[in-house]
């Protein structure tokens, strides 16, 4: 994370002092890791929480006052990158939910109360996952969107993309029936999740190389 010079400070008055302290620290120390900033702020403000500092960083980044860059650990291949479970949690969660939904649709009884599982997983499968993996594939850099924007945009894009997939099915001999819908949405979700993880891997390597060249 590093500060951009010459930008006006538009911080809200109630958070101004903490924002200014963070900017002063960055001005003095240059590019730094977020945990180091947290420690520095906590030294002066013992009650400040992790969440508040995380919000502060996003706020400054959104207003263009600082750049936030996610520097991944060094990996030699995509396979090794996929081994970073915590970093790729979104990918594994998306794939797992997609794949669990399939047996739920075809094998679970449709009687109450078990059908509730299908209601919930099916809704996530249709109204969230397609948009979520699309957002991850299109905007792989964390700084491009904050988590809540990512979440809301995922729902919005799902509402747009799922019917477009259905429209394409309409013009095939398969028609808009259960199995074609399930197969097409699964392929769509897994495919874009793969694109997303691939883009993150490539960008991560670039960031890592830039980081090494400047440090």
């Amino acid at each position, binding site marked *: 994370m590093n500060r951009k010079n010459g930008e006006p400070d538009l911080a809200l008055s*109630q958070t101004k002092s903490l924002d200014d302290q963070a900017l002063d620290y960055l001005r003095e120390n240059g590019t730094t890791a977020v945990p180091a900033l947290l420690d520095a702020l906590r030294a002066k403000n013992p009650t400040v*929480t992790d969440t508040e500092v995380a*919000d502060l960083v996003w706020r400054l980044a*959104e207003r263009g006052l600082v750049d936030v860059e996610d520097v991944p650990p060094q990996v030699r291949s995509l396979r090794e990158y996929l081994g970073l479970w915590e970093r790729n949690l979104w990918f594994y969660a998306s794939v797992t939910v997609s794949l669990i939904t399939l047996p739920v649709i075809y094998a679970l009884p449709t009687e109450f109360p078990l059908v509730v599982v299908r209601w919930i997983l*099916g809704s996530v499968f249709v109204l969230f996952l397609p948009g979520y993996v699309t957002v991850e594939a299109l905007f792989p850099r964390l700084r491009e969107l904050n988590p809540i924007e990512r979440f809301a945009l995922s*729902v*919005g894009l799902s509402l747009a993309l799922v019917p477009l*997939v*259905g429209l394409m099915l309409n013009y095939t001999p398969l028609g808009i029936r259960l199995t074609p*819908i399930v197969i097409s949405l699964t392929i769509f979700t897994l495919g874009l999740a793969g694109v997303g993880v691939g883009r993150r891997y490539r960008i991560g390597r670039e960031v890592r190389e830039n980081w090494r060249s400047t440090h």
Partner: protein
Amino acid sequence: MTLDSKAPAYVWTTILLAAIVLLLLSWAKSYPLHQESTDLPFLSSVYWTYWVSYLIFAISFWRLATTSHSVPVKWGAAVGFFTLMNSLAYFYYYIPGPDTFFLNLAPAYFSGGFINSQGFGVYPWPLFFLLIHMLSEITTLPLNLIVSVYYFGTGFVMVSMLFFIVTRHGLDGFWSVVTFSIIGFFFLDYQFAPQTLALAFVMILVYIDYSWKKSLAGIVTVLTLVVATALSHAFMLAYFVVYLFVRILQDRRYWIVGIFAITLALVSDMFITSSVLSGLILGTFSSIHSLLGFLDYGSRITSALTHTSPFVTFARVTVLSATAVSGFGLAYLIKKRRSLPQDIALVSASTFALGVGVAVEVFGSRAIQLTLVAAALASGQFPELLRTRKVGAALLLFLSISSIFCVIHINYQPQLYQSQEDAQAAMFLSATMELDKDAPQPLRVFTPYIVRGFFGLSDNGNASIRVFFNFYKVDPTSMDYVLAPTATPAFAGNTYLAAKANLTSRYDIIFNYGDGAVYAST
């Protein structure tokens, strides 16, 4: 994160949990809402704990938004407030949105196995039907629950985008969402289901433009949403064309011009290639001379003023206050020259839509919703007009609490909602009624319930759909048909009885529900 620096977190947590329990209790006691008689106040069937929980939630969301420094918490409070204002809708068997008209249209829509965009007035808007159909196939959710999921989803997207745009200005998003929710409560008609979906897409497009960082990913997202909006409701995309046109006048970079060209081409194609749409557009403009839109606005305002209940007066005060907040915010933006180019484009496009809407009714009813977006954005500026934060917080608390009067106001506009009986009645007609080709369209059907909606019939899988209109509190004898639950012992096993009107006191029974059609005379 504590809710209040002065009160322990567990106090507020307990209060919120109590509110949730009260809300769930009222839902369990009241769902699905119905009324025995149209003469009784409709909301008398809502269990009293709902109103208590409403007030607790309103105050809690206000407290969260005004005391927390966390953006996600403020966003959660904003989404929560919008959902709260519309929460009563979830007490109905079918909530506003894809009403009976659309519910019956959807199966007919796919029965032919192919989408025929020339077939019917709403067929050019296939995206909504596709979404409902696919969600239904995957989840097997009952249609009334799908409607709830859809309703929450579109509202969630709209409010979130509004919040993000305002907070990216460094302003208070909760203010904007509160004014949007209060004013929009009366003008955001979820009965226009495809259009509401398109409005949500337009708000995402506007959000992307506000936070635009030129990239291939951004352009792909915009183009996807433009196509989705075109297939959801081209009127909304026409508004976006106007918005983009103003943006081009401000900024002639190639990507705006490119997106404008594609959007314009899509809208033109929708209107030119569709005989339904071209007929609609020609018919619309040929009616300009009659100033239908102006008359429609006038009649709505005058009919609204006839109510004299104190609750209605309080609701008016709340809406007028929210409107004033937006107006002052807009004036402040202009005076201080702090408006962004996107603000100007949004206000210009909304003004244009409103201007067209004054003359052309079909655009007018939509224009108000579009204007709402611009007004709500401007209201985010309002807190800066106030000398102290306390005054702002007090006014925001007033708006949050008094929003309950807008909800109570439903009592005086019950036709916006549908009870289980309404839905069943419409489903019954759709499933059983057969019409000859000479039947007048639309048929006027009286029901003793509170529905104001449409429902459609499929002619054995053909694209032709008959449209009905249910009337509320009118003289049944002036209707083409009357629908009522049968009280006749001979038909005790039947759910509904359809009868032909135009008779004075006795009806010709044309068919009944159960063992097949029965033709008889009483």
